[in-house]
């Protein structure tokens, strides 16, 4: 399996993602500078990493969304390619229209950098097939503008279509207001597009791939991607 990790000016979790998939997963990875206009044909999954692309000027992700590589990212996603946006990468995917919604400043107006608990809402996706529904993951967040917002009517649509993949919860898996670190609607921490091949999430799975870092729960996500890729290859061999 090979990951393509997009680097925007101001990305700062690119090497973390690289390390996580290479060391944690044993997969291959390649960096893709944002001025590239094509995605190499051997890439199975794109990662838009965290950071502060373009200094978060104007709005988080608003300028990166117009980087040359983004047209290729949109084509890659529309062709069914796997795309994972983490933190600033999630913000960029929303600005690009690949995912619904937008981000406000955290409800408490503070930058929050600490581990949170996430409840896995589905396990029949490329991103979570290695982890049962209801599992509570402990993964860090690190953001000032992570307060996810969509209209209430859109929240219902997301729920009806099963697009909410991760919700902020407490250690016991209860989705409560107190467990919501930033004010996100419906405790949303990660959502899928309608087709299920694009995921945006505010928590950083790449920072939770080694026991030394306090958690290895992020590996569930990367292992799921690898498992999905292997089963897809097996299917194509059979057919």
């Amino acid at each position, binding site marked *: 399996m090979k990951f393509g990790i997009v680097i925007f000016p101001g990305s700062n979790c690119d090497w973390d993602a690289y390390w996580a998939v290479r060391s944690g997963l044993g997969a291959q990875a390649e960096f893709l500078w944002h001025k590239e206009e094509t995605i190499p044909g051997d890439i199975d999954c794109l990662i838009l990493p965290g950071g502060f692309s373009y200094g978060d000027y104007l709005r988080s992700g608003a*300028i990166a969304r117009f980087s040359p590589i983004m047209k290729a990212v949109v084509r890659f996603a529309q062709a069914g390619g796997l795309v994972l946006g983490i933190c600033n990468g999630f913000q960029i995917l929303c600005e690009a229209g690949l995912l619904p919604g937008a981000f406000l*400043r955290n*409800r408490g*107006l503070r930058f929050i950098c600490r581990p949170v608990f996430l409840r896995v809402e589905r396990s029949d996706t490329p991103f979570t097939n290695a982890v049962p529904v209801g599992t509570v993951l402990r993964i860090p967040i690190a953001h000032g503008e992570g307060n996810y917002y969509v*209209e209430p009517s859109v929240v219902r649509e997301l729920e009806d279509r099963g697009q909410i993949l991760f919700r902020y919860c407490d250690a016991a898996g209860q989705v409560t207001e107190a467990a919501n670190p930033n*004010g996100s609607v419906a405790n949303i921490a990660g959502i899928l597009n309608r087709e299920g091949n694009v995921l945006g999430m505010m928590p950083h799975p790449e920072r939770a791939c080694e026991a030394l870092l306090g958690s290895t729960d992020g590996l569930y996500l990367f292992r799921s991607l690898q498992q999905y890729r292997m089963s897809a290859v097996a299917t194509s061999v059979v057919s």
Partner: protein
Amino acid sequence: MERFRVAVVVTIRRSIADVQGMTVEQALHAIGFPMIEDVRIGKYVEMLVTAASAEEARAYVEQACQQLLANPVIEDYRVMFAVPIATEAEQQG
């Protein structure tokens, strides 16, 4: 063609809590301004636009707002003015 100084103000939509505005309002009340309410924090963007008329300059800026300067999911924008820069210089004396 003329050049126009155009200004845009972008604010969080009315239906969404503006936490910064609420916090500043509380601070204003605390220091003796109970008469001030409905405080809203936004962004001010000023630019020079080359266009045939002020209306055309405004129209370009409206498009720029829709594509980049504001995010309609969470923000409203208002084009505050579009003034020919010759007039602007006269105003500054």
